């Protein structure tokens, strides 16, 4: 079983990395022929960086758009970030100081992550408009994430697997050697779901993460009168004349 899971982990990580890089290259290589920043648009490159930071850290636009979605979404994303940081202890030896420091916070974050996800799920179920636009995959994505978070919490608070063995397993994987993983059902479920998430990342709406950075309405400086902006395919129209 350990080996089977290892193969799946390698495979999904490969799909995740290669797929994501390819997608990013695709975005970066596609021209944005016209200046289309949305108001309030900064006029300088520095302003764009600030705007992007506000979007990434505070979800500024979503905050303007809908407070409940913002509360749930922000809580979920930043809890998950803490949880991911907490998990670095399974991949580092010795464990970095700051990772050690955040261990207890990471546990609370697991709980708030589920709370945020349940908020998002409730919105999908109970708000007529959101229910209308939801596809089965939208629900499954939330269920998958709730599954990941709650199986993690289950291992923390109910049935502890041998974490030393778990750590050895991952340190081994990082050096291309497959070691034994504790035969714990919840652990297997947890890991399978996590790597399923990575597997579908480059071909699903999870692409919103890299997408934001390439969104012309957010990443362009509003200076069209000061500097001529022209895409290569559009410039060709001029040389043809």
């Amino acid at each position, binding site marked *: 079983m350990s080996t089977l899971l290892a193969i799946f982990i390698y495979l999904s990580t490969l799909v995740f990395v290669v797929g994501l890089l390819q*997608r990013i290259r*695709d*975005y970066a290589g*596609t021209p*944005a*022929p*016209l*200046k*289309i920043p*949305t*108001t*309030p*648009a*900064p*006029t300088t490159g520095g*302003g764009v960086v600030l705007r992007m930071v506000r979007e990434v850290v505070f*979800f500024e*636009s*979503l905050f*303007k*758009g*809908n407070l409940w*979605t913002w509360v749930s*979404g922000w809580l979920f994303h930043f809890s998950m970030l803490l949880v991911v940081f907490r998990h670095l202890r399974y991949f580092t030896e010795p464990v970095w100081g700051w990772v050690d420091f955040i261990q207890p916070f990471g546990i609370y974050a697991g709980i708030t992550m589920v709370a945020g996800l349940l908020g998002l799920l409730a*919105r999908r179920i109970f*708000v007529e*408009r*959101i229910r*209308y*636009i*939801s*596809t*089965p*995959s*939208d629900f*499954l994505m939330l269920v998958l994430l709730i599954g990941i978070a709650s199986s993690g919490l289950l291992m923390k608070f109910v049935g502890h697997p041998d974490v030393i063995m778990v750590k050895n397993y991952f340190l081994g994987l990082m050096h291309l050697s497959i070691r034994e993983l504790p035969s714990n059902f919840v652990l297997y479920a947890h890991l399978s779901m996590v790597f399923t998430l990575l597997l*579908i990342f480059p*071909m*699903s*709406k999870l*692409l*919103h993460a890299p*997408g*934001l950075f*390439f*969104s*012309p*309405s957010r990443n362009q400086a*509003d200076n*069209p*009168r*000061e*500097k*001529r*902006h*022209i*895409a290569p395919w*559009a410039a060709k*129209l001029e040389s043809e*004349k």
Partner: protein
Amino acid sequence: MADIAPPAYRTFPIIPELKPGAMEGKGPFVAPDKINEALGFPGHLEDDWHDKAIAKMGDLLSRYRSLKVYMDACVHCGACSDKCHYFIGTQDPKNMPVARQDLMRSVYRRYFTLPGKLFPKLVGARDLTREVLDEWFNYYHQCSECRRCSVFCPYGIDTAEVTMAAREILDSVGYGQKYANEIIGKVHKIGNNLGLPGPALIDTLEGLEEDVKEATGVDVRFPMDVKGAEVLLITPSADFFAEPHIDSLIGYAKVFHATGTSWTLSSMSSEAGNFGLFIGNYDQLRTIAMRIRQAALELGVKRIVVGECGHAWRVAYSFWNTLTGVGDGADPNDRFAQMLQKQLDHRYKQPSHICEFTWDMIQDERLVFDKSKNDKYVITYHDSCNVARGSNMGGYPGGQFDIPRNIIRAVANNFVEMDSSTSYERTFCCGGGGGLLTDDLMDVRVKGALPRMEKLQQVKDEEGVNFMACICAICKAQFTKVLPIYGFDRKVVGGVHQLVSNAIQLGVK
């Protein structure tokens, strides 16, 4: 129009419940063969439309990063779902921005993503059937490309970009919209959206000179095709004859007169509007804009100033430099752009908005006003969507909001704001933008005006507002038609330069 009843005002701004299918079959007239063919599009749908449409979609995905990212990035969070005036007014769920995008996104997933190819039902992917194409035609012509949804989207997804792509695909298979394509044909043939030939324009302008002389006793000129003039004014052709637009044209002329600015109109390039934007077609957008470049070069002007028109200002401010070189900062090796940029006077922004021009003159104390001439009005200001969310003025963020308001305060005593949830970048479209200003879409236009009308009613009741100023030809035309349906006088709407015209004192400085 008497038979069209407006939707009821919402007592408090609740989000309306869904009425699926409410606006099915309420789309515009389909363009006949001749109109499509004049623009180089197929005349009508042919048997191979499906493959051509998918190929066109692939082509657009490779040329527009906006479309590619926006197709992928949406997570269906719903932040935009209650932000569209057409959704609020019609309650049709397919008028929610996300649902409008999904009409195309579902097809994108089916043909361009692995999960959509393997598990279409799971991810909401659909084949592009004739029914889907009809749905596109219907609902992508119930979007005014106003970008309000984009303000609230966590990824900045702009439904306007999706609507434009959809319309371009529809045009590419011969399924165009009559109104927009007919107007573009007129620009190519005659030089303006209304199809007014040069002699008719000159006639109108002479009439205006007589009118102004009669009213003020001053010889204010409306020059046409004057070589060597300093300023070329490019204004929407509605300014030449439509009410209340013409009053703003008189206002511009008075400002030029009072400041001793030599200026001219062009009979060849007599249109600021650019419906190429509405149909999302870069070639059309560019070809139409090229007339302005040509006029500027031929007349040898130093400055290009744009009249009161929302989408025209977006095209002028954001796109002219890209499309035609009207602007600054071209690469030294860029011969095409340099040819024009060397001619223009870069002490001024190129192009400038007429409001930027007038506000500069006010700051330089070159204009004198008798504000009491506007005392019969309690004025509010409607931010037009393309000015508010697709452009700028004054060169600093938010200048497009301040400058028109500054002018109003400089020429009038009574100014009040409408509810802040519907102004500045959160402003609501008038309901007639984006190529929807046609009688065959009257139903959606009236319903789409609801959110603006609610807040206008509020300032009318609370503050006695009797004049709503704006700087958009489409807003003016739309409100003139829609205001009476909501129980207002149609003369409640007018231009900022109409107020300038009322108050300006000629022959004082």
